[in-house]
């Protein structure tokens, strides 16, 4: 039962990692990396490390996404300034 | 008590599954959002309360109820913000749509 969860989530993590590598749209890649941290946190819980899982939950779900988004926003603004 | 909790969480799990199926099968993003937010919220409420009933313990049932409250508070806000953003950037509605009130109202401009 527990092993099933680990294998399914591991395969999904691999698929999300390929998405983050190959997608042309950067925003979709950011969303895929959010999905990776989501499933990594469940696997940490199964491996009996709740402290690590909580760190992954707090950082991966909110803060990393927001930092990436701000960086993407800065890049977009710079490109638009160049076009004007 | 334990049996009732188990059955409630089974019903909740079915709702979670149907919500995910709706996310996969619905025709456009607004319908997907409908399924992905409402059905999964109801499903998670039932699932968590069923778990709490089955393993009754004073501290744990308090934490489960707080968890359910957090989901009820936060989930509508995120789906509202996402639906508004999707409408503003011009994602098309499906052809079967009959009414679009947000389009008729005058939109807020960039400031």
């Amino acid at each position: 039962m527990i092993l099933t969860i680990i294998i399914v989530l591991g395969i999904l993590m691999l698929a999300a990692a390929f998405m983050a590598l190959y997608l042309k749209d950067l925003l979709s890649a950011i969303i895929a990396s959010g999905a990776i941290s989501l499933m990594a946190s469940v696997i940490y819980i199964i491996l009996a490390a709740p402290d690590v899982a909580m760190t992954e939950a707090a950082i991966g779900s909110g803060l990393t996404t927001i930092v990436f988004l701000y960086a993407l926003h800065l890049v977009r603004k710079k490109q638009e300034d160049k076009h004007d | 008590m334990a049996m009732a909790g188990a059955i409630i969480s089974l019903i909740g799990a079915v709702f979670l599954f149907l919500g995910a199926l709706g996310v996969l099968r619905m025709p456009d993003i607004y319908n997907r959002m409908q399924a992905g937010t409402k059905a999964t919220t109801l499903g998670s409420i039932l699932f968590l309360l069923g778990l709490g009933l089955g393993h009754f313990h004073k501290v744990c049932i308090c934490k489960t109820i707080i968890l359910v409250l957090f989901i009820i508070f936060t989930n509508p806000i995120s789906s509202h913000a996402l639906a508004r953003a999707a409408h503003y950037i011009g994602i098309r509605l499906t052809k079967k749509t009959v009414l679009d009130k947000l389009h008729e109202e005058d939109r807020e401009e960039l400031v």
Partner: protein
Amino acid sequence: MIKRFFSLIFVVLLALVFLPLVTEIKPLSELGMTSAKYAEDGAAELGAANLVTSVVVTYRGLDTLGEVTVLFITTAGIGFMLRRKTILPEKKRRASEILKSGTSFLLPLIILFGVYIFVHGHLTPGGGFQGGVVIASAIVLLMLSDINMHPDHNILNWLESLSGAFYVIMGILGLILAGGFLDNRFLPLGEFGKIFSAGAIPVIYSLIGLKVGAELVGILNKLGREDK
């Protein structure tokens, strides 16, 4: 094309390396010398129910100080690199009314939850770093819902410096009054498993939480908002 192929091979190989780690994991039959000492004496010596906390704050407290310093250097580096001279005015869209009301309702709740995480660090999973991140997320939610919101630089700097200084002062107090640097036993240990227990660990964790939260808000503030 060849680069994509190699990255695919690399990810699959990485997965094959990590798979046995997950599937064949067994609880250790006996611990090593250091971990056995922590596991046997940790709870009785320091009075913290969460053993990870007593390792992070007391036994390896100096390393935690180093980590917080690395975060501080990161903040300074980002502030140095992102300094811009001319700013073109940028058009933004205001947040909707529902998001504003929801933020004003949820903001105290999230901050309270962050405080719960770092005050309860010695009883439940979590601690200073996680609580600080939760508080920083609350401030980010405020920045998202209001386009004119600027966290004050001076307050952030003072908060960060003061909590860092008090962290070191707590360490030196432990050196003077108890066994060594960052020893938590100069405050009474209290009853095992209650909030007011484990000596100075909750105080130190609160200081770490404030420092981490102030640093992360500073980083996001420098990324997202320009100085006028």
